[in-house]
């Protein structure tokens, strides 16, 4: 039987969880301010194109089975409007750390003006990436 005490405690728990998610989102938000200094890692600029920075490792299974095909289909759809930079986090861990990559796959979507639009920790399907490119969540 649920009583008031249980409901209050559940509400407190929910509030703490929401606060934690807020802190996580804030962390992602602060990444946007660091993008300027990180863009030098990506090599030559591609004017007018979105840049997708994709962190992976050779043995990451979801990277091979889901993330890479998603990026490939996105490439086919968008052509030159999308520039993909794939980074092996195992080979370049210092880069992964600088970008705040905690697990693979992680994708960073940077708009043509060089601003970080979205960070996806974990698999991001083609539809999601496409929505992010077109300005949605």
């Amino acid at each position, binding site marked *: 039987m649920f009583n008031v*005490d*249980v409901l209050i*405690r559940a509400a407190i728990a929910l509030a703490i969880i929401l606060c*934690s998610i807020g802190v996580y989102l804030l962390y992602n938000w602060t990444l946007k301010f660091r993008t300027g200094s990180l863009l030098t890692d990506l090599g030559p600029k591609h004017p007018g194109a979105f840049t997708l920075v994709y962190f992976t*490792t050779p043995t990451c299974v979801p990277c091979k089975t889901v993330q890479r095909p998603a990026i490939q289909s996105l490439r086919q759809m968008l052509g030159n409007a999308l520039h993909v930079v794939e980074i092996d986090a195992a080979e370049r861990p*210092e880069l992964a*750390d600088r970008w705040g990559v*905690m*697990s693979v796959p992680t994708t960073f979507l940077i708009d043509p003006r060089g601003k970080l639009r979205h960070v996806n920790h974990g698999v991001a399907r083609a539809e999601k990436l496409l929505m992010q490119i077109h300005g949605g969540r």
Partner: protein
Amino acid sequence: MTTQTQHLQKVDHNALKANQLTIITLNLLAFIFNLPILAAIVAVVMGLGSLLKVPGFLPLYRYFYKPAGLLKPDVLEDNPEPHRFAQFLGFIFMTGGSVSLFLGASALGWGLVWLVIVLAALNAFGGFCVGCAVYYWLARIKVPGFAKTPPIGFFPGMKPKTRV
């Protein structure tokens, strides 16, 4: 980048994750339903895990999470010692929390339980193990018994990315 040799072992990070997820779930239930006994059980299991040098809720991973397809092995090259230390640290906090709750110090007790929830969540969802970072820090200042260094190229406590 250093050239030191490291003797990393195979560590199944999803066994650790199953442990953390179970700790989070049980502690949340303990808090919501005001069940200090459940927090005490979590403390005991973590203590047993520390003693046996395995994740306390390893049987749940073997017989529930894996068969149910919720988690698959994610074996990485890593040091197991910092993770054991992290669990031991969790056990200390959980024991302190449980004892406080039984002594009537609810704020302190639940505060410690929540600390374990937050640290376990940070590890399970963020890939950062605070207990491991503490271990590596103690190793750095040469505290006896703390000898391992983080996998080369990785920030202390951060989940390694090299799969076996």
